[in-house]
């Protein structure tokens, strides 16, 4: 685990950069990005092993964003971590930009492109299996949405991972209880999710997904025999009062005034 990095400050920076990107590109999904900023800050600031100067180093930990629409938060985290410059972020959403509006593997530090939901966990299972075959120590982290758990492919992957005791695989489920039209509980009720994952043979931790201390403790833990799932209870739009828990901000992009107000709340401009 790294020391000396203030992940709380990093999360603020991720949120500010994400807001500026979607504002400039008139893009959607800012609520989803704000939801995962704390998780990413703890992963990139404390937990994961990587070297931005060697983005394909064999010993790096692998991170996969399965909810690819929240990509601005990852691009911003990669800039904070040294993979990208903040100037690179300005190209987000432009024609032919490598920073496309769903996470893109053409960006240094990104392992896998997603956009269609229900793909990241299986891909992560394959990576974890490769590490097992090659007797390598690195960890695969996959970040999914709770609405994304509607996809049956995730449950196939959950079964496979526990059957093969992939203890080098960590799934983080961003449980913000909002999906495309309304809440997760009103769409396809997924609770009790922790019990379901336990029944599928996973090691579970159910935590506040904005609490950095809990995140760093729980993301660093391993079961010797089971894959690990972190249920990160989050608020969609977290950090910007008028975006929090509003399904509208899955789609809307902030106008100039809304951007200013949001950045003020986040201690910057």
């Amino acid at each position, binding site marked *: 685990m790294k020391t000396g990095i203030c992940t709380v400050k990093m999360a603020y920076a991720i949120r500010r950069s994400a807001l500026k990107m979607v504002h400039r590109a008139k893009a959607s999904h800012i609520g989803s990005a704000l939801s995962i900023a704390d998780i990413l800050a703890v992963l990139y600031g404390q937990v994961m092993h990587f070297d931005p100067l060697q983005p394909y180093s064999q010993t790096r930990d692998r991170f996969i964003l399965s909810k690819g629409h929240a990509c601005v938060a990852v691009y911003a985290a990669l800039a904070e971590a040294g993979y990208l410059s903040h100037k690179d972020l300005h190209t987000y959403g432009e024609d032919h930009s490598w920073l496309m509006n769903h996470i893109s*593997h053409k960006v240094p530090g990104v*392992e*896998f*492109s*997603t*956009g*269609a939901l*229900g*793909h990241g*966990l*299986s*891909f*992560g*299972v*394959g*990576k*974890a*299996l*490769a*590490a097992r*075959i*090659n007797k390598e120590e690195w960890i695969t982290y996959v970040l999914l949405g709770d609405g994304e758990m509607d996809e*049956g*492919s995730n449950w*196939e*992957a959950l*079964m*496979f991972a526990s059957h*093969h005791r992939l203890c080098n695989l960590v799934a983080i489920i961003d449980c913000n209880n909002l999906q495309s039209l309304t809440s997760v509980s009103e769409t396809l009720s997924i609770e009790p999710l922790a019990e379901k994952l336990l029944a599928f043979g996973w090691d579970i931790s159910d935590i506040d997904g904005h609490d950095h201390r809990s995140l760093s403790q729980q993301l660093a833990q391993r079961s010797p025999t089971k894959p690990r799932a972190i249920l990160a209870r989050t608020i969609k739009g977290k950090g910007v009062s008028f975006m929090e828990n509003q399904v509208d901000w899955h789609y809307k992009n902030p106008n100039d005034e809304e951007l200013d107000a949001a950045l003020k709340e986040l201690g910057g401009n």
Partner: protein
Amino acid sequence: MRNAFIDELVLATRRGKDIVLVVGDLGYKVVEPFADEFPHRFFNAGIAEQNMMGLSAGLASEGVHVFAYSIANFPTFRCAEQIRNDVDYHKLPVTIVSVGGGLAYGNLGYSHHAVQDYALIRSMPNMIIAAPGDPMEVRGCVRYLIDNPTPSYLRLGKAGEPNFHKNVPTISPGRWLPIEDSIGPNNRTLLTTGTTLEIAKKWLTDSELDGYTLHSLPLWGMSTKHMQLQQSISWEQIVTVEDHLTDGGFGSWLMESLHGSSFDLSHLRIKSLNHRVCGMVAKQSTLYEEGGLSAFLK
């Protein structure tokens, strides 16, 4: 064909090739030689093709050449988006293997009739289709794919197919393969892909096809369209043969390859399956007859 495939896979893995075989709970009495010799490189993903294809892509992203094995439409249509987004878009070395291409599982019904698979796979820009015509071509295709790992689809028959090549041919993508003992040379040819090589060979004895020569094209796809005019232009008449629906099939692919070129498309004839076979249940030979592949003139 199935056994030739597994045999080549075992031989290559023994030589040190970084290969993993993932099966979708199928391959009874086929995959055991590999599974027994390389148990740490064999995984049964269960009856869960989406995860099978996704994890195959993940494995392949770490440098492994993955062979993802199942039958009929299960490793293609069931997980089409994983093939499109995870394998093809990322250009990962996953070879999808489907046993029972065409109507080999005729009596098992429409779920098991793989007659639209070329259409799906050939719509993906990085995919190479490997459709061998006999066990020798299977070996040639597998050797090519192992030496050149790429997103690919290996379409096999079942078992007991005759050999038409005396030796394992050297196969390269987009290149027509002359069948050694065919009639000719002539300026008219049959061009087949996949297991209809056997049908095309029989048709050569048909008086209507007197003087025709015979070629097989076992490796093809979107990236090899540009190679077809040069090979087609010298022929006065080309008849393509395939056990796939006309729509999105092999003949359709060749026609698209030649469209707008100096080749006169009225000299191209496509022998493929009529869509009336969709939903019919019968043995392969009966379905060939119903679909228009029992004889050249039908």
